[in-house]
């Protein structure tokens, strides 16, 4: 018997290729996983202490918890009931079929169960955890659950006759309303805790508290389903059943097609293959749970992916707990999802496609261009609630929030968060193959679970379930129109808790008829319940009564809600049918106009581009022209200059020529002068005595000098 609320978080496992939960890590992610394992461990330690604080502040003291386990009031059931302490990855319980969750968590369950309008508070919750210290005892019906009071409380109740049950439930609901406000702060704190993750050691029980498997449980129901199972097996073994046979359920008058059993048997070894906890006993438990569910809700039967859910739950809780938790998840959160026609799932995919288009227009149009539909990628995400898609730590963190919120809006937020984190990488993909492969590998390596959950919960906080509901109504006609006309057969509404989805109904009953049917249903249920109670009264101690009263009340609430839903759905179906053609037309028109708009925008863009280009061209042309002109001018100038140069050159030549000639003539003159002088000199002695003076000769000489000087000066001046 453990003495602590939370055992210390388990350490990283020895086995190399398995993670802390015992699941296989893909070989190429091992390195990455190792990096994150340390972070996970630290986060786990932190959240463990925070949860412990929270539970001891608002739940019960540690001592009481321990005491609770000692006096588990279902010991009388005959099941070998161990304490409810969880042991991490220890695997499915082999012997006990049901364990109550620890009492400190029961207020959570009660609180979540009793506020159908919880979406209003869980959405507005702020991440602040700080010092919201609500008055103790804010848990809704904590008083009634309190161990110390319990026996007296039940003893008092023992005398209450059956017909006062109604009264009682009314009282309780008024109490519930009063305490609603008190518990608001308490819930905000819880929501913040949930977003940062539920500790491994607590997860199984906390999930049960979230989905309310305890209040859903009907004593003996699971065992009854199991008894029938065993008969089936025997028949099976002896080959008494044809494959196409339908096994008739003697107890509830329901039938299960053999194909589900076959499919389940096929999928058992394909559920977390090699997981240490899924040994022979583990697989047997898995088989039991899945068959029991198919039998319990024949509207759904068995759909692949449930094997993963059941397998996961069995790793965290005993068999019967896993069954009721699975029932709660499938019937409350995923109603209409895993049925033959999967209407809700298909609608959700269309809604998601719209959301992706709204939040990531570029990515959306890129995928369009690659010929990819968002649903091809996200379909498996939603169907398997991210199991085998994201790394396990991330899967569990997403489940924490999803189960807490009482609806499946977390699916959408997670998907959008994934696109936010990895969408930009997809934008670079050149073709469809690249895009899908890239996204697959990125998603499977989203080890940063805190980042993912934070992005989902804070980044898309405004994405509320009510908004999703609105969007869904828009797409019902489209999906219903695509369904194959004649369905093979209508599954009977066998079990009393079966989810009745009007969308699945091929032949809607008219309202009057419906009413009668509903009344019958209520009567039957009451009869069944009173029978149940009577039987338990005989068998068990008074303690059972409080449980039964709670259950009666819960089931009444649930029944009335279901019936209300059904009526609403009926009306809606009619309306939808009437408006169907119109909507489809509108839808087409809307799509077309949207397309036209985008095309127009594109055209405008192109036009703008063209004009810009034109302008640029014009400018370029002008520049070119100007340059050409300049070129011409310079060329002309060059020509002129060249001509000038040529002229000057000829003039120089001429001058040179003239100069030469003149120099020649000067030389000639000089030589002549010399000759003349020599002549003169020669003749001088003869003439001199005659003339007697040299003076006459002198001037003639000087004239020769002068004439040559004159010629020089003339030539230079020229």
């Amino acid at each position, binding site marked *: 018997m453990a003495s602590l609320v939370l055992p210390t978080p388990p350490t990283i496992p020895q086995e190399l290729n398995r993670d802390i939960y015992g699941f296989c890590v893909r070989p190429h992610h091992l390195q990455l996983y190792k990096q994150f394992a340390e972070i996970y461990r630290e986060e786990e330690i932190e959240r463990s202490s925070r949860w412990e604080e929270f539970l001891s502040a608002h739940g019960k003291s540690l001592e009481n918890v321990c005491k609770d386990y000692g006096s588990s009031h279902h010991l009388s059931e005959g099941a070998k009931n161990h304490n409810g302490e969880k042991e991490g990855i220890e695997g499915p319980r082999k012997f006990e079929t049901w364990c109550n969750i620890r009492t400190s968590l029961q207020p959570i369950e009660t609180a979540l169960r009793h506020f159908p309008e919880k979406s209003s508070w869980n959405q507005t919750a702020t991440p602040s955890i700080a010092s919201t210290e609500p008055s103790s005892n804010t848990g809704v019906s904590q008083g009634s659950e309190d161990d110390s009071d319990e026996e007296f409380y039940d003893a008092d109740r023992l005398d209450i006759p059956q017909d006062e049950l109604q009264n009682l439930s009314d009282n309780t609901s008024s109490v519930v309303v009063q305490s609603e406000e008190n518990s608001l702060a308490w819930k905000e704190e819880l929501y913040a805790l949930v977003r940062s993750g539920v500790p491994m050691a607590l997860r199984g029980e906390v999930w049960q508290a979230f989905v309310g498997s305890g209040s859903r449980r009907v004593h003996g129901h699971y065992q009854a389903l199991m008894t029938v199972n065993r008969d089936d097996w025997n028949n099976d073994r002896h080959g008494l059943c044809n*494959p196409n046979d339908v096994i008739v359920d003697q107890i509830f008058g329901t039938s299960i097609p053999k*194909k589900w059993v076959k*499919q389940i048997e*096929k*999928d058992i070894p*394909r*559920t*977390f*293959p*090699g997981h240490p906890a899924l040994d022979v006993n583990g697989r047997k438990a898995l088989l039991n749970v899945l068959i029991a569910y198919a039998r319990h809700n024949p509207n759904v039967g068995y*759909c*692949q*992916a449930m*094997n*993963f859910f059941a397998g996961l739950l069995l790793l965290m809780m005993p068999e019967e707990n896993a069954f009721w938790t699975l029932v709660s998840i499938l019937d409350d959160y995923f109603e209409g999802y*895993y*049925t*033959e*026609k*999967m209407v809700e*799932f*298909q609608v959700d995919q269309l809604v998601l496609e719209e959301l992706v288009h709204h939040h990531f227009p570029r990515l959306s149009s890129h995928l369009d261009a690659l*010929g990819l*539909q968002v*649903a*091809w990628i996200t*379909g*498996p995400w939603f*169907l*398997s609630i991210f199991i*085998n898609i994201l790394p396990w730590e991330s899967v569990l963190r997403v489940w924490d929030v999803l189960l807490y919120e009482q609806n499946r809006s977390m699916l959408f937020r997670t998907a959008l968060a994934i696109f936010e984190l990895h969408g930009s990488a997809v934008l670079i993909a*050149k*073709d*469809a*193959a690249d895009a*899908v*492969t890239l996204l*697959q590998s990125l998603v499977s390596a989203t080890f940063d679970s805190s980042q993912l959950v934070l992005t989902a919960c804070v980044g898309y906080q405004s994405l509320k379930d009510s908004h999703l509901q609105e969007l869904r109504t828009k797409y019902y006609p489209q999906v219903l129109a*695509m*369904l*194959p006309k004649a369905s093979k057969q209508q599954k009977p509404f066998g079990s009393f808790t079966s989810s009745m989805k009007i969308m699945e109904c091929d032949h809607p009953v008219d309202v009057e008829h419906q009413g009668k049917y509903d009344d019958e249903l209520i009567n039957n249920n009451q009869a069944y319940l009173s029978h149940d109670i009577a039987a338990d009264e005989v068998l068990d101690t008074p303690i059972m009564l409080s449980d039964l009263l709670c259950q009666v009340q819960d089931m009444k609430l649930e029944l009335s809600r279901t019936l209300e839903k059904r009526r609403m759905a009926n009306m809606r179906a009619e309306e939808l049918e009437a408006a169907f053609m119109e909507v489809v037309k509108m839808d087409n028109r809307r799509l077309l106009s949207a397309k036209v708009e985008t095309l127009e925008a594109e055209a405008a863009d192109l036009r703008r581009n063209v004009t810009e280009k034109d302008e640029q061209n014009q400018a370029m042309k002008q520049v070119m022209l100007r340059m050409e002109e300049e070129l011409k001018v310079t060329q002309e100038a060059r020509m002129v200059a060249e001509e000038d140069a040529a002229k000057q050159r000829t003039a120089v030549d001429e001058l040179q020529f003239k100069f030469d000639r003149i120099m020649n003539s000067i030389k000639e003159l000089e030589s002549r002068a010399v000759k003349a002088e020599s002549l003169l000199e020669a003749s001088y002695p003869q003439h001199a005595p005659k003339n007697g003076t040299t003076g006459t000769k002198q001037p003639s000489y000087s004239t020769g000098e002068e004439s040559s000087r004159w010629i020089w000066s003339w030539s230079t001046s020229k």
Partner: protein
Amino acid sequence: MATRKRTLLKVIILGDSGVGKTSLMNQFVNKKFSNQYKATIGADFLTKEVQVEDRLVTMQIWDTAGQERFQSLGVAFYRGADCCVLVYDVNLLKSFESLSNWRDEFLVQASPSDPENFPFMVLGNKVDIDGGNSRVVSEKRAKTWCASKGDIPYFETSAKDDLNVDVAFQCIAKNALKNETDEEIYLPDTIDFSSGSTHTSSSCSC
């Protein structure tokens, strides 16, 4: 066509749950076999580059979930497929009998332009089991069925022993590619060359 990017062939694998679709795909793409496959939910997807004659093509293989109710979800992504691979388990009669359903379903939902000549391929898987002693569908019977559906090429495979897997997928790629080029030729000029050629070459010699 102005620029020819890399050729993408879209291949869809159909067949009953548990006949070995995922195993075949993994054997072909990753050259690995494991007894520990998880059930496929919705659809899974792998790609592989293959050399067909002198062309490098990328096969984009869509592995589908076998459970009946997932069929209604397949509508969209069957479209644009270049080849459809039908898989059955030679040891399970029902999986063989379902082939017609799978084929019809595919043709209805994918609505190819020329359903008569759309390239299918049938693989009889798990021939390794029990040395073939537990098989209930004979090769002859399977081939007869294939012949009746317009000479669908048929291979007996074992994903576990890697028997015929590569050969089969090569043939798939070849046929898918041929179909693609046939269509391209067919579009511009209307000579009935194409119908003649597809008819003679539809039996893949292997």
